[in-house]
């Protein structure tokens, strides 16, 4: 049975942030509101959604960088809690969105990459440490002579590679990639995405790939989860989601993908959503998407649809579709 056990199993994860407005008026921002998914060994799950829908918070709460309000995360069958998170730090890593603020400007590259090695005592002597750092730099496509330089001497793409090398230093089995390419220009994006794929093939790492660029996610992932206002509205295999989205939000999101071929683009029907995203402080009752949904009915205002199985591993949270 252990072979079929997912590597990461997230169950009903919730992350609420208290927000003060006024003197005594305390409100709760539901950044992540009951998210469940699983990721198998060596698999990539893409997580898409518009800005502010809680993608990043899912990634960070998953790693207990934020204390989850409720819900459970199982890693390799073991429950991850605040107390035992230390054991899992070696297996779960994160690559950040902003390659500029995610590297300490006062540390050399070898110190940045060597820090996880220092923390987990992964070497016996200085020479071993230097060798491992050189090995990691080569692995992510950097020159091992760069180790003595400071992070500000590198370009965005190179810095992102340093961030990846740091995440890889502890030989993790799972990496949260928090929009790792959105701060980079397109040519560098391709390089970084390819680096991620090569590493997956070589080392068998599982990814939670967070992005808002659907094409990148489609390219990277086997399965995709679509998020809207802190909830997963649809989850399924990448080709299903891209070619036949079911949830009205996924449909509009997919229809917004720019087409490289103008001939195909001309025949495409673009679904433009009306209205703004409701404030996560004042969530609409019932289905969070109903205020912008073309198919909204009475039922949508009454109750929030839960994810239901639609066969072929796809789950959709919608009353109507």
């Amino acid at each position, binding site marked *: 049975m252990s072979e079929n056990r997912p590597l990461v199993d997230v169950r009903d994860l919730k992350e609420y942030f208290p927000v003060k407005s006024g003197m005594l008026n305390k409100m709760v921002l539901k950044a992540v509101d009951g998210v469940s998914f699983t990721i198998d060994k060596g698999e990539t799950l893409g997580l898409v959604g518009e800005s502010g829908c809680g993608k990043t918070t899912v990634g960070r709460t998953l*790693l207990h960088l934020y204390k989850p309000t409720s819900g459970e995360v199982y890693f390799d069958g073991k429950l991850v809690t605040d107390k035992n998170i230390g054991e899992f730090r070696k297996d779960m890593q994160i690559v950040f969105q902003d390659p500029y603020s*995610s*590297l*300490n400007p006062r*540390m050399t590259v070898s110190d940045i990459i060597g820090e996880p090695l220092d923390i987990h005592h992964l070497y016996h002597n200085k020479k071993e440490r230097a060798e491992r750092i050189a090995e990691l730099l080569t692995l992510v496509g950097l020159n091992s002579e760069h180790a003595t330089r400071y992070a500000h001497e590198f370009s965005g793409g190179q810095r992102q590679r340093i961030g990846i090398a740091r995440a890889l230093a502890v030989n993790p089995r799972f990496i949260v990639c928090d929009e790792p390419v959105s701060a980079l220009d397109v040519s560098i994006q391709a390089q970084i995405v390819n680096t991620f794929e090569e590493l997956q093939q070589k080392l068998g790492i599982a990814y939670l790939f967070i992005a808002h660029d659907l094409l990148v996610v489609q390219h990277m992932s086997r399965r995709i989860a679509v998020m809207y206002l802190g909830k997963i509205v649809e989850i399924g295999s990448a080709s299903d989601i891209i070619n036949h989205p079911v949830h009205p939000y996924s449909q509009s999101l997919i229809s917004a993908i720019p087409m490289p071929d103008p001939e195909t683009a001309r025949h495409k029907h673009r679904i433009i959503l009306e209205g703004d995203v409701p404030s996560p402080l004042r969530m609409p009752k019932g289905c969070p998407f109903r205020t912008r949904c073309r198919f909204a009915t009475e039922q949508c205002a009454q109750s929030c649809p839960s994810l239901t199985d639609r066969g072929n591993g796809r789950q959709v949270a919608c009353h109507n579709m």
Partner: protein
Amino acid sequence: MSEFDPNKAPVKRPFSLQLDLSKFEPATDAEKAQHETTRESTTFFRDGMRKLFKNPLAVGSMIVLVVILVTIIVAPMIVPYTYSGMITVNGKRDKTAKNLAPFTYSKMEQEAIDSGEKVFPHIFGTDELCRDYFIRVIYGARVSLSVGFFASLIVLIIGLLYGSIAGYAGGRTDLVMMRIVDVIYSLPDTLMVILLSVVLDQVLGQSLQGTALASIGTNMLSMFAVFGLLYWVGMARLVRGQILTIKNNEYVLAARAMGAKPSRIIRKHILPNCMSVIIISTALQIPSAIFTESFLSFIGLGVQAPMPSLGSLANAARQALQAYPYKLVFPAVGICLIVLSFNLLGDGLRDAFDPKLRK
């Protein structure tokens, strides 16, 4: 159409926007080689020091400070007089050497010189108790500078610890700790300094008798304590603010994701990044401590009687201002030079190290 020759520049038409290639020349091998050599890796610290040494005011004040430091270390070894003893000639107390002007000699000394002996000149003259004034000013500068250094050190240590704990812990801890700071900040500091130095002087005086610390003088110790108790709040606020900003950087989150303990995060990630601001504010703290010490000595609450300080010397000189004005000038110029140099050096440090002021 002639064939394209890559080495020949095309003719430029009068109104075309095309670049005039004839104005360019190919790079020489030396120039190409220059581009290939990679820039030497420079650290933030080295870069800052380079900028600091380009600032003439900062360099000038550093030179002044070094000269003062060397003088106050070396001068007591050369000058044969002591700050507390009367001038003696051939083992006899020289009561005629009272209130001498600079580079003049008393009657007894003149007689000794006439009989072929050598007498060290009184560079700044003497005071009303027949003591060499130069050595007193030198010792006064020693006292003032050491009070400045140690007080700033105490302020730095307390402020750094307190501020980093409040900033890093955040939440309720931060709230309580910073309200305490606000309370101390709102006390009238001059009044508190006077009250504390009076009270501490008596309390410390009894408990210190017979210990090694007694030789430093209870006044001096109580002054350190006063600085430690009152002036750390500014430093604590500064450090806390810095830490709050730096804490939100993603590299701190990355360190947490790696499993780094809070102490390691503070030591390796947060403190190095706010160090420049802390160093600058410490450098600016020194002159303010010297100033407060001089002020306290001036009103008679500073160091104990035979031990001079620049402030107490100025106060003593005030009483005979019309007769011997030079006695006020020397310590006053001393205070000015030291305070001004530290202020200019602090400004230079800020310009060189503050990331917000960098070009």
